[in-house]
């Protein structure tokens, strides 16, 4: 690395040097290159007054929650009805209480009466109702389409009426920041006004976001007065941290192995998972509405899918591919309250995988090292997005681990445009991970398979469908959890490895951050898909511990 950099700079030096010589050999030519003066860039050291964060996460289309702003991490400018605490348990924020009607169709939320927007206007139930109604009709990145209407019954009570019961609707109460009805319009996204802990000072698009503590915030005043978010690439974030200019920097695992003086590496567990999705049906010539083929004869065989699950050494993938910054994944919701612990398996067991294959009728008849069953060869293609080196390494390593048990996996990197039509008939390295259980529903419900990323493998099991529907219709998240767990594995059925093995989940990526030793960021949550912004979830509680 060092060598390469040296050589490159020598090259460029000679190019510039050449230029200078040439300029020098003539008449009255002025000097061209490097007229720049030495940098007097002020060393940015943090303090309780100001810290600099290089964690990416710019929202190009602005900071309007009704268009999806704040669905990860902290919405900064706005506050939400509910929030998830460090353990991802649901806690009140703007709301003081919420109840659900018997039929699960009406949610009644009472809110605190002392909240004001940063422009001084009080926040009332009418603003809450406006926010939800607006979000339901606007084509943004927050999905509130299940809402029939939101009505403010008095100043502090709002009724949210749904079209059908949906236990995961609570996630909208957690992520949707409340906007002021009187100040919401097309310009709002660039001039956000809200009741959150911070208010916008300046946004240089493509460069930085500067925010300051909101003096009108109803909660405890944030520990850091001013935050500067620098929007630079990961390499830039690392360079800024190393130069002491940034106090919180998100870095890829490949850079996390280095040391930075005065900074601690935070290795945050996440549900940002990667796994192999199997086409579940045999290829019968059926196609999606867009004409893409569905099904794969090899992966339609349960023995193959289970054998893959048991043969893969997930810990080796974590150590080898992720440099140890990760954890094995046995399902789509690792580390969350609705994970079924019994769904985990003893993997890295090629003998068990061979036994499963033999019992399933697979044998190596011609001695070429690849099993057959009748005319069918145990061979499939694993697709991964060519731009993602982590997924590439996972795919290649997994294929290596399958060779000894007689499964031939061919690994191919393609663009998403090429993968999309091929993903219903080939194994694909996908990555998901969310605090919203809707994702699990959409990954495994047979009705979700419509020729898109939802249940791309066309997994279908009516028992699982019923359980997922029960979870979705449950009156509260707490009661839904039992159903979510049952769907994963209940001892007899489930979509995880011991059941239908619809996927071979591989690993969860840890999200690595360098954080200044002087900064106390509390206990980070188990983070969703997306490295960077999620660490801001508790940003109002961060404190500066040095003088």
């Amino acid at each position, binding site marked *: 690395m060092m060598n390469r950099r040296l050589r490159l*700079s020598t090259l460029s030096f000679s190019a510039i040097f050449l*230029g200078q010589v040439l300029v020098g050999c*003539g008449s009255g030519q002025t000097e061209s290159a490097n007229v*720049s003066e030495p940098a007097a860039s002020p060393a*940015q050291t943090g303090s309780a007054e100001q810290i600099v964060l290089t964690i990416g996460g710019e929202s*190009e289309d602005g900071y309007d929650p009704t268009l999806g702003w704040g669905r990860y991490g902290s919405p900064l400018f706005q506050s939400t009805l509910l929030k998830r605490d460090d353990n991802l348990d649901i806690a009140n924020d703007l709301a003081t209480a919420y109840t659900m009607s018997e039929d699960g169709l009406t949610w009644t939320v009472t809110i605190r009466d002392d909240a004001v927007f940063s422009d001084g206007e009080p926040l009332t139930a009418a603003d809450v109702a406006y926010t939800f109604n607006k979000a339901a009709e606007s084509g943004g990145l927050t999905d509130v*389409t299940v809402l029939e209407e939101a009505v403010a019954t008095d100043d502090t009570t709002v009724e949210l009426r749904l079209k059908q019961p949906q236990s995961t609707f609570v996630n909208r109460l957690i992520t949707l920041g409340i906007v002021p009805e009187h100040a919401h319009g097309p310009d709002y996204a660039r001039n956000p006004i809200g009741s959150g802990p911070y208010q916008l000072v300046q946004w240089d698009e493509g*460069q930085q976001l500067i925010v300051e503590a909101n003096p009108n915030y109803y909660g405890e005043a944030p520990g850091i007065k001013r935050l500067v978010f620098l929007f630079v690439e990961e390499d*830039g974030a690392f360079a800024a941290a190393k130069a002491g200019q940034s106090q919180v920097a998100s870095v890829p695992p490949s850079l996390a192995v280095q040391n930075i003086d005065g900074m601690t590496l935070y290795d945050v567990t996440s549900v940002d998972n990667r796994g192999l999705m199997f086409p579940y049906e045999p290829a019968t010539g059926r196609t999606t509405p867009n004409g893409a083929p569905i099904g794969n004869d090899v992966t339609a065989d349960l023995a193959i899918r289970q054998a893959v699950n048991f043969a893969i050494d997930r810990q080796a993938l974590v150590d080898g591919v992720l440099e140890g910054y990760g954890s094995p994944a046995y399902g789509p919701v690792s580390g969350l309250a609705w994970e079924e612990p019994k769904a985990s398996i003893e993997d890295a067991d090629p003998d068990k995988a061979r036994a499963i294959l033999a019992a399933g009728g697979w044998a190596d008849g011609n001695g070429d090292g690849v099993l057959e069953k009748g005319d069918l060869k145990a061979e499939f293609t694993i697709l991964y997005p060519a731009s993602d080196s982590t997924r590439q390494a996972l795919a290649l390593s997994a294929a290596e681990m399958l060779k000894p048990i007689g499964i031939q996996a061919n690994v191919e990197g393609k663009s998403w445009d090429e993968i999309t039509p091929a993903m219903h008939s080939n194994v694909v390295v996908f990555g998901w991970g969310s605090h919203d259980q809707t994702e699990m529903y959409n*990954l495994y419900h047979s009705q979700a398979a419509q020729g898109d990323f939802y249940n791309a493998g066309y997994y279908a099991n009516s028992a699982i469908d019923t359980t997922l529907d029960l979870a979705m219709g449950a009156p509260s998240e707490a009661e839904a959890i039992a159903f979510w767990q049952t769907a994963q594995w209940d001892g007899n059925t489930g979509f995880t490895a011991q059941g239908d093995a619809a996927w071979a989940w591989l690993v969860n990526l840890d999200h690595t951050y360098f954080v200044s030793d002087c900064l106390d960021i509390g206990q980070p949550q188990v983070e969703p898909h997306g490295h960077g912004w999620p660490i801001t979830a508790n940003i109002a509680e961060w404190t500066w511990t040095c003088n």
Partner: protein
Amino acid sequence: MQLRPILLFALQKLLRLGLLLLAVAVFTFVLLSLSPIDPVQAYIGADMMQISPEQRELIADRWGLDQPMIVRFGDWLGQLVQGNWGTSLVFNQPVEAVIATRFQASLQMLAIAWLLSGLLGLGLGILAGALAGSWCDRAIRLYAYTLASAPTFWVALLLLITFSVSLRMTPICCAAPPGVLAADVTIWQHLHHLVLPAITLSIIGIANITLHTRQKLIDVLHSDYVLFARAQGESLSGVIRHHGLRNIILPALTLQFASLSELFGGSVLVEQVFAYPGLGAATVQAALRSDVPLLVGIVFFSALFVYTGNTLADLAYPLIDPRIRLGGWRS
């Protein structure tokens, strides 16, 4: 000045401009609509599992993507005639506002690069042409050929590695120092962030102009009238001043204005490398996320920009060479 030829000239130019813009609009629109990137998909990105088909329809509806291409083109053209360029999908802002803010950031960089490459290119070209065959000429040619064949982004990376990473003389990114309010940014800080991208852009432009100028000067120096002048005892510098410059200034000017398009293209790459938030960076984002209104807007704007540049060159000819008259008018 004679009014009629100027009017005729202006009319002709405007007509051509109109046709050009129409062709550009049709091509961009059709090409982008055929692009495999689905703008809704690009917008949703990693949130695919949380967005239901109903919400997808809402998004498509908000942007009018549920309409067929012809209808969308008609709507867009109708709005354009009324002065409305549409709304950018990526930035959720009127296209003209995006272009205005982004172009302001790019303009200074483009202007510095344009002037530098023009002046240096001309100077180096004259030097090489006058001393053709000498070691100085060889060195300049080597330099020009090397840079002419070097990709812009590669040169940009080399400069970044040298001056920003190794020497720490220039900032690594952006157009302003971090954490400083817009009102507090000094002109020096501003120039400091501008200088490396601008120099990168100009370095690329120099090669082309140098080589052309050199060749033209050599042609002039081998002409009969120069031989005659030399025979009369005129020195080389005198010949260049009295005969050379006048003859090479026209092609140099043409090249200089024609290089506007290359400059514009180069800025896309340079801004990407230096994380400079100008129009070039916006172009990349618009293309990657299939933001048709913004991309068509930028293409439109750049066509106007380049066309204006070339027209300025046309207008400058009669001022420099009185033998040239607009619209082929003869006295």
